[in-house]
């Protein structure tokens, strides 16, 4: 609101990980008493930027100014001591500690030289009440739901009384009501003079909360503008840098015969009574809040964590899926959400990653034929246009987008009939994103049935023939491409309206 000098300012920040540039000459400035929105697609460099500001990473170039003076945070403790706090996108709770201690970790109230547990519980309780959460501060974080965890992380950040508060997607698994409670508090903090940097994928939230917006794209700075007078379309254009039609090249394919039928699928504590069907040539989008149970359904279909009840039919035949090996044999492929943990063996080469599920093909009596393996891997990598120096390059050296292409190449090599894509474009650059969408469209045209889980509503809306929405482990809405809108999907996902 004021034109005062910025409390925190970043200038010319650059950072590379293993040769891949995450940030290039990025700047940002937030003033006291304002909410600055930081906008960009997944992989635009937002999270890296805030981690540099709070001292998790050290920049390769550039500087950070606090109150106009250069500040160097060697770790987050140094940043916290200067009143710079953050909520990170990664879950950063301690599962073995209770809620109160998760809030006050490292800063537990001390009385007479001892940790004052009573005060800690009282203050934690008060803070949670202020956030409108009913939660016993004595239970362990291990037992919380995803939304509850997010509230605890918010409580932790607020309890610092920071001068600079950075919130990286704090609302990704909150319901509408919870979001509103949060906004009340964020506004209070802003009015009391804190500078707040707010990251969210829900544009309407930014309009409701933020004063200005800084946009990043592919690790580079795009622009900073006051939000007043900017439209959603403007923001998307800034963020995406190209036409939406180009980003979501969905061809229309007539749905073919039934490929996958799911009926009454359930796993206690995760999801229940999930039923849907998937036809050849069809892309079905699955939307919902983080923690709604979408990934769990996918993992049940792929046999990573088999369902306890319900039926799965493939091409009309009843099957039980007890493990990924079997799912593969049934023609199911799964591109998992967490590329680094589940998608790739990072230390292994591109070729070895691509052929991992299909090694059997290149083995005679267990003995691998290196030539055949490389030939096949080379074909798959070329088909997906993976940018690499050689097939022997470790997967860890690739950019996020190219890594995702390797994961896709790996699954395409298994010739799946049903392909489940879990957040297929998370953390990758816009160019690759368009390429992945192009590929999906093409695969559908070839007759593969695709189930796409995504938290990005434009992607869901842009790529799906039909849309399922999940909420609290159940399917809470089914929409055709024509009838779906952002508002309808959000309402089904959060259970409001």
């Amino acid at each position: 609101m004021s034109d005062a000098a910025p409390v925190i300012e970043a200038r010319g920040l650059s950072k590379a990980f293993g040769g891949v540039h995450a940030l290039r000459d990025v700047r940002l400035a937030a003033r006291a008493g304002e909410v600055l929105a930081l906008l960009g697609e997944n992989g635009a460099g937002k999270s890296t930027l805030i981690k540099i500001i709070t001292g998790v990473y050290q920049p390769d170039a550039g500087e950070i100014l606090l109150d106009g003076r250069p500040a160097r945070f060697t770790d987050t403790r140094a940043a916290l001591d200067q009143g710079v706090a953050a909520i990170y996108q990664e879950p950063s709770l301690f599962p073995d500690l209770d809620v109160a201690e998760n809030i006050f970790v490292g800063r537990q109230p001390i009385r007479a030289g001892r940790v004052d547990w009573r005060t800690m519980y009282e203050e934690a309780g008060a803070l949670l009440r202020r956030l409108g959460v009913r939660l016993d501060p004595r239970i362990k974080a291990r037992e919380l739901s995803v939304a509850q965890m997010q509230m605890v992380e918010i409580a932790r950040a607020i309890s610092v009384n920071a001068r600079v508060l950075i919130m990286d997607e704090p609302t990704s698994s909150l319901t509408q009501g919870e979001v509103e409670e949060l906004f009340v508090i964020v506004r209070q903090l802003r009015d009391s003079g804190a500078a707040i940097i707010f990251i969210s994928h829900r544009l309407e939230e930014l309009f409701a909360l933020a004063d200005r917006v800084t946009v990043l794209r592919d690790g580079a700075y795009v622009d900073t503008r006051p939000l007043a007078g900017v439209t959603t379309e403007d923001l998307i254009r800034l963020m995406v840098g190209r036409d939406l039609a180009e980003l979501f090249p969905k061809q229309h394919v007539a749905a073919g015969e039934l490929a996958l039928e799911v009926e009454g699928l359930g796993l206690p504590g995760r999801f229940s009574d999930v039923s849907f069907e998937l036809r050849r040539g069809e892309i079905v989008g699955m939307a919902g809040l983080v923690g709604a149970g979408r990934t769990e359904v996918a993992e049940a279909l792929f046999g990573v964590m088999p369902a306890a009840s319900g039926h799965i039919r493939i091409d009309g035949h009843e099957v039980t899926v007890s493990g990924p090996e079997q799912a593969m044999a049934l023609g199911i492929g799964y591109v998992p959400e967490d590329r680094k943990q589940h998608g790739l063996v990072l230390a292994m080469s591109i070729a070895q990653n691509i052929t991992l599920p299909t090694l059997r093909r290149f083995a005679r009596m267990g003995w691998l034929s290196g030539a055949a393996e490389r030939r096949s891997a080379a074909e798959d990598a070329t088909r997906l246009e993976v940018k690499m120096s050689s097939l022997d390059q470790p997967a860890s050296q690739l950019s996020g987008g190219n890594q995702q292409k390797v994961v896709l190449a790996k699954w395409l090599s298994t010739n799946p009939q049903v392909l489940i894509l879990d957040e297929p474009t998370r953390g990758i650059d816009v160019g690759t994103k368009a390429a992945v969408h192009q590929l999906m469209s093409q695969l559908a045209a070839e007759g593969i049935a695709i189930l796409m889980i995504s938290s990005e509503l434009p992607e869901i809306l842009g790529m799906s023939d039909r849309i399922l929405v999940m909420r609290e482990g159940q399917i809470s809405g089914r929409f055709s491409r024509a009838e779906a809108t952002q508002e309808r999907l959000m309402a089904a996902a959060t259970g409001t309206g």
Partner: protein
Amino acid sequence: MLTEKKLAPARSMSLAQLASRFRELGIAAFILVLAALVSLRAPAFLSVDNFRDILLNISILVIVALGQMMVIITRGIDLSVSSMIGLTAMMVSSMLVLFPWLPMPAAILLGLALGATLGAFNGLIIAVGNVPPIIATLGTMSIYRGMVFFYSQGSWVNASDMPEGFRRLAKASPFGVPNLILFAVAVLLLVAFFLRLTRAGRDIYAVGSNPDAARFAGIRAQRVIFTVYVLSGLLAGLAGVLWASRFEAAQTNTAFGFELQTVAAPVVGGVNIFGGSGGVIGVVLGAFLLGVIENSLTLVKISPFWQLAAQGLLILLAVVFDAAVLRRMQKRGS
């Protein structure tokens, strides 16, 4: 790490809490059942004297296992404790042979200082040198043991060489309870206080529970890890002094192989080998269970040839039982 999203919605009755409490209750129950069975066959088991003997026999184990527990909470392991005990026992008793007038507090302080120094060396290699704890302490286990031998050139310190005051250090019972037990209780209380009521103690749990999150929260994990190895060494140093006093001898092979028991006690007592959780009560119960097993195998006149197998089997059962029950509870809970 907390990457999974497959977490249970919170319930009014916290099942995991019940489960973790159950761990300790489970061991307690296991001990009671064992005690009941043993006392049927050997009534002497239930005597006060026997109880005191068990406590005496596990006191040193409790002291060292508490240090080991702190290391395990940070996802580490300290295999060098046995050699640190051997080295401090040898060095401190040698000093007492040379200077019999040394007051006992000085002997204890010397033991603590020597142990802390050895532990600091472990901590340095692990926290700064990034050497995996199991490798680092496997290495220092042989190094420290070799130093014991190099120090004494193979000779022992015998009972008759030791000043009377030193020999009475562990055994005298001026307060009605043998000093050794009092030492163990004092260490127990101090460690409990440290872990529960100081920030440094809480940081140990935080680092073990989620190292990445600890970094985000501004906890200096390197220091915490260094500290736990120093503490483990410190307690091993104290144990070395008490060991020499109790057994009235310092030998080149003092405490050889003891490290396995110091790992077994916390693990049986429900300290998660993957870090982040565990408490002093569990360690005491674990050590007590080991003590009861050893004591009762002797008392019920099991063939000595079967004792080792029975001991191994019981420990294995305790761990498997614990894991199976915990898994079932977690499955049902989530």
